[in-house]
């Protein structure tokens, strides 16, 4: 690869959205509407083009050499520094360098590609909004932060990108700051993100302080490739972070996963994602479906050498993932807000990805990420068309009969639902069956995890087709639903492109059962994440495939029976299993639990401080200090006579004293 050319491309890919953000932000809304409409999506599309050229460059290399580190500039260069109480011989360097390898290119393609489509969609969706320029400034900032996160070769810049993503997401969720609910949701998201950031930063500190190199010396490195080369079994492996499965590496794995769980909305840091639906719908598509929430999956996949050394941490990742997937799928079945259903579905699908990367099926997890980004962005954007047509109506009980009025949107939503539900030949089918069958061979408690995964699939196809039937079929429930019109072309084109992608991207990797040799996708990722350690036998995989597919279709049929033909009563579950129904409607009471366990004690403590500690202790302390200073000042003031000779006398006396002291020291 031509290094200068690659460097320029990296700079363009990262620099264009940054420039877009700066121009939009610094002109403070003065740019004309038309200019922003080109600038906002234009920079992202430009970044996408640069990414595609990088991809072509990368594909021109033999697979073993796909992976370059591009140094953009030297940032910190301390050749000899005081590190950890001893003078480090190797010194500490942190450069702004960029890693281009299949994993980061894949993330960049999704971020800029799907992100670009969502930007184009936003031109239509946000056209009437008063803060049009601010919206695109935040969106470009988000793209920049996300690119920085996935491209960084350096732990420090990864953390910077990680936190910038959290800020951009906060700004976009609370975009309509006149709505108290939106502001509260943004705040909740940000606080949750910061909890995760603490985990990530502590994990990074522990890596920095404990990583040992070949000769057992401290490395003090923040370069990801250096860390990975020394952490796991490999050419240079000499107990980088202690023995395999040791305490240190397990703690680091769990801390990093805390960060990943906050970004990816996994239990116990999942409660922000449904509330984040208060933001504009393109934001939900961009942040809460395609990119940001998959940063956790990326983090675990990127740090896979570390997780391979920490089976306990990886097991926790997998179990939390599948647990969250099941919980979110159950909640999704009873929600009425169309965006919340899709949000819980996102949580559930990302749970599956987290399960996959925790179980060691990295390529399968990333493939699920890739297809999910397509069909989930599609579902959000199609839902956005519906919401827009119904003038901000989000309750599926007020919809109905939209398939005749919004034919193209209905078609797109249907494709997205089929892909999400894992109906054969749509994208989700390939990725989910591959994920489950690879997970089948790797997971520690395999059969049970597989059963849980398949139940998630059944619930998924049930709840998404519940939405399809409730919102698009039947009779219009309200006059607004009856008057709905198809969306404008600007909003339809990206949706249709995504529908096309959702239908076909699955064919990139026909590998799930080991029958077909076309494994483009996992071959592409193989230089970074390697191959899965084990495969289940072909027979078991085929059986798993058949059963899984049949059950997914069964979920669809169940939704049809309940909501289409109405042969099964809708309130069957609520009558027979009221506790399960309540659990689902109340979202497993996590908000209430956190309220009782964290929020209310904090507020009570704050009230105590406000009423007792503040007036009686802190106020008194401040008054006393003020009085002391005033008295001292009054006393000192008498020293200031205003007479020149007094000052010069003091000066000479002090000079003499200084000279005498100096003389003694010299003697």
């Amino acid at each position, binding site marked *: 690869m031509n290094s200068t050319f690659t460097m320029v491309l990296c700079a363009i890919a990262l620099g264009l959205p940054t420039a877009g953000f700066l121009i939009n932000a610094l002109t403070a809304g003065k740019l004309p509407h038309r200019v922003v409409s080109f600038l906002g999506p234009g920079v992202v599309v430009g970044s996408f083009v640069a990414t595609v050229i990088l991809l072509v460059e990368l594909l021109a290399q033999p697979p073993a050499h796909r992976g370059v580190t591009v140094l953009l500039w030297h940032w910190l260069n301390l050749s000899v520094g005081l590190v950890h109480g001893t003078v480090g011989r190797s010194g500490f360097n942190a450069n702004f360098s960029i890693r281009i390898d299949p994993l980061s290119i894949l993330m960049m393609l999704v971020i800029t590609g799907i992100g670009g489509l969502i930007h184009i969609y936003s031109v239509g969706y946000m056209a009437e909004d008063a803060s049009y320029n601010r919206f695109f400034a935040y969106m470009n900032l988000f793209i920049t932060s996300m690119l920085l996160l996935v491209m960084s070769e350096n732990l420090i810049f990864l953390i910077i990108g990680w936190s910038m993503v959290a800020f951009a997401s906060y700004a976009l969720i609370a975009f309509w700051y006149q709505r108290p609910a939106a502001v509260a949701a943004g705040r909740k998201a940000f606080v949750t993100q910061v909890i995760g950031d603490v985990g990530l930063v502590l994990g990074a500190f522990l890596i920095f302080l404990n990583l040992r190199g070949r000769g057992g010396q401290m490395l003090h490195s923040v370069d990801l490739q250096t860390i990975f080369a020394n952490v796991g079994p490999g050419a240079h492996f000499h107990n980088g972070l202690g023995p395999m499965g040791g305490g240190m590496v397990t703690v680091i794995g769990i801390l990093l996963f805390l960060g990943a769980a906050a970004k990816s909305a996994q239990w116990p840091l999942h409660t922000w994602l449904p509330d984040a639906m208060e933001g504009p719908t393109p934001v939900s598509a961009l942040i809460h479906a395609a990119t940001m929430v998959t940063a956790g999956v990326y983090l675990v996949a990127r740090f896979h050498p570390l997780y391979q050394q920490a089976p306990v941490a990886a097991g926790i990742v997998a179990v939390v993932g599948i647990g969250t997937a099941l919980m979110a799928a159950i909640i999704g079945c009873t929600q009425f807000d169309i965006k919340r259903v899709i949000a819980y579905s996102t949580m559930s699908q990302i749970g599956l990805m987290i399960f996959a990367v925790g179980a060691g099926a990295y390529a399968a997890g990333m493939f699920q990420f890739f297809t999910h980004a397509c069909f989930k962005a599609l579902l959000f954007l199609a839902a956005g068309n519906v919401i827009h047509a119904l003038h901000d109506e989000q309750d599926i009980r007020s919809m109905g009969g939209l398939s005749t009025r919004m034919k193209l949107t209905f078609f797109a939503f249907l494709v997205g639902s089929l892909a999400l539900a894992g109906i054969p030949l749509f994208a989700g089918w390939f990725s989910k069956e591959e994920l489950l069958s690879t997970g089948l061979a790797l997971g520690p408690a395999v059969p049970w995890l597989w059963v849980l995964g398949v139940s998630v699939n059944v619930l998924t196809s049930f709840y998404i087709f519940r939405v399809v039937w409730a919102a698009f079929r039947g009779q219009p429930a309200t006059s607004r639903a009856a008057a709905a019109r198809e969306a404008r072309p600007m909003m339809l084109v990206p949706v249709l492109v995504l529908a096309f992608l959702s239908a076909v991207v699955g064919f990139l990797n026909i590998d799930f059962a080991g029958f077909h040799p076309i494994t483009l996708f996992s071959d592409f990722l193989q230089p970074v994440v390697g191959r899965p350690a084990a495969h289940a036998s072909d027979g078991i995989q085929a059986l798993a495939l058949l059963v899984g597919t049949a059950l997914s279709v069964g979920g669809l049929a169940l939704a049809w029976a309940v909501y289409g033909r109405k042969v099964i009563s809708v309130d069957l579950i609520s009558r027979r299993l009221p506790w399960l129904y309540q659990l689902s409607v109340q979202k497993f009471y996590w908000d209430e639990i956190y309220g009782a366990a964290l929020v209310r004690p904090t507020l009570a403590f704050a009230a105590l401080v406000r009423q007792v500690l503040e007036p009686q202790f802190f106020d008194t302390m401040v008054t006393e200090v003020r009085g002391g200073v005033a008295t001292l000042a009054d006393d000192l003031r008498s020293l*200031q006579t205003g007479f020149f000779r007094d000052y*010069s006398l003091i000066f000479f006396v002090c000079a003499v004293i200084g000279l005498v002291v100096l003389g003694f020291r010299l003697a």
Partner: protein
Amino acid sequence: MTGLFPGFLTLSAAMFALGSLGVMVRRNPLVVFMSIELMLNAGNLALVTYARYTHTMAGQVFALIVIAVAASEVVVGLALITGVYRSGRRLDIDELSEMRE
């Protein structure tokens, strides 16, 4: 030669002490200025003495700079004194104590 150095240095110290005494006890600003000049020249004398003693030029060069600084300082100081005189006030340093608070 060596025997003369203590004499020069004692003279310098005496000039400095006299100068500082003048700065502290005299009330006429012009005399105060002359005392300051005395102190500066005491410093010059010490510098030149040590330059001679160590056979280097640095002290002599430094003395030249001190002379230049002293000249410019006198310019500023005399301008201030003239300004005070033209505003119709007595030339007494103890009268000029408004900067007390």
